C-alpha cells in the first residue's frame, strides 16, 4: 500500500450524526448562551460605572 493510497483512503465515519432537529436545537441553545453572556458583559460594565469605586467595597 503506497503513501498516497493511505492518504486518500476514507475512514468510516463512526461519530454521532446529529439529526436536523438536534442541529437546530443545538444552534438555538448556542445562540441563547451567547446572548446571555453578552448581556452579562454589558450588565457588569454598567454596574461598574454605577457603583464607581464602591464596586471594590465588599460587605463580606
Amino acid at each position, binding site marked *: 500500500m503506497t503513501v498516497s493510497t493511505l492518504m486518500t483512503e476514507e475512514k468510516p465515519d463512526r461519530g*454521532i450524526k*446529529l*439529526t436536523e*432537529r*438536534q442541529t437546530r*436545537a*443545538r444552534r*438555538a*441553545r448556542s445562540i*441563547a448562551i451567547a446572548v446571555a453572556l453578552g448581556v452579562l458583559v454589558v*450588565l457588569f460594565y*454598567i*454596574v461598574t460605572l*454605577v*457603583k464607581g469605586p464602591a464596586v471594590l467595597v*465588599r*460587605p*463580606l
Partner: protein
Amino acid sequence: MSVTISHAEPSIAGVGDYIELMKPRVMSLVVFTALVGMLVAPGRLHPVIGFVALLCIAVGAGAAGALNMWYDADIDGRMARTAARPIPAGRIAPGEALAFGLTLAAFSVVLLGLIVNIVAAALLATTIAFYVLVYTMWLKRRTPQNIVIGGAAGALPPMIGWAAATGGISIEPVLLFLIIFFWTPPHFWALSLYRADDYARAGVPMLSVVAGPAATRLQILGYALILPPLGILPWLLGYTGAVYGAVAAAAGAAFLLLALRLHGEQRGFVASKQLFAFSILYLFLVFAALLADHMSSALFGHFAA
C-alpha cells in the same frame, strides 16, 4: 469486570424547554412580590442595582424551579398536569436540569451578594434551599402539611426585595411574608381538590388525598378566616393609607365568601376552581394596592414639600 460506556442521545432541548424548567409563571409572581417589597422599602436603590436585584431573584426562583423539576421528574411523569414538563417528556436529561439549576442558584446568590448586599443574598439562598431541600425533598412526599411549611419559600421574595433596598429586615416585610404564607395553603388546596386524582396517582399526600375533600374545605375556610385580617394589618398598623386598606378589605371579603361557598359545595369543582383563580387575583390586588398606595403617598409628599 466490564465497563459499559453509554452515549446519551444528543439533546433536542430548545431554549423554551430551559425556560419552562424555570417555571416562568411562578417566577413572575415571585418577581412581582419582590418588586413591591423593594419599592415600598424606605431605602433608595439605584435603578440599575434594583434591576440586578430583581434579575437575581428571578434567576434564583428559576433555579429553585429547575431543581424541583429535577427531583420530582418521577411524580411529574405520573400527573396529567405535569407530564409534559421537559424532563418527564424526555426533552431534557435529569443531569442537565440538575447542572442548570445548581449553576443558576450559585450564580444568582453570588451576584446578589457582590452587587447588592449580603442580607438579600442570604435570604435568596435560604429561599432556594428551603424550596428544594425542605419542601421538595423532605416534606412534599411525606406530609399533607407540605405546602403549609413549604409555603415559606414562596413568601420570602418580598423580604428579599426589602432587604435589597435597605440591607435589613423590619416588621413591614414580615407582614408581607405572613400574607403570602397564609395565602399559600388555601391557594394550593383549592387546586388539589379538583386535581386529587392526579396527586393520588403520583403518591403525593396532599390534604385532599389524605384527609378527603370535606376536611380540605374546612381547612381552607380556616385559612380564609385568617388571611383577610392579615391583609389589612399593614393599614391597621399605619404602614399604608386607606386606599390599600379598602382594597385589601374588599379582596379579603371576596376570598372569604368564595371559601364559604366552597365549604358548602357538596359535589363538583366549580367553587374550588373559582377560589383557585381568585386567590391569584387576590395576591395581585393586595400587592398592587400596596404599591399604588406607596406611590401615591410618595407623589403627594413630593408635591406637598
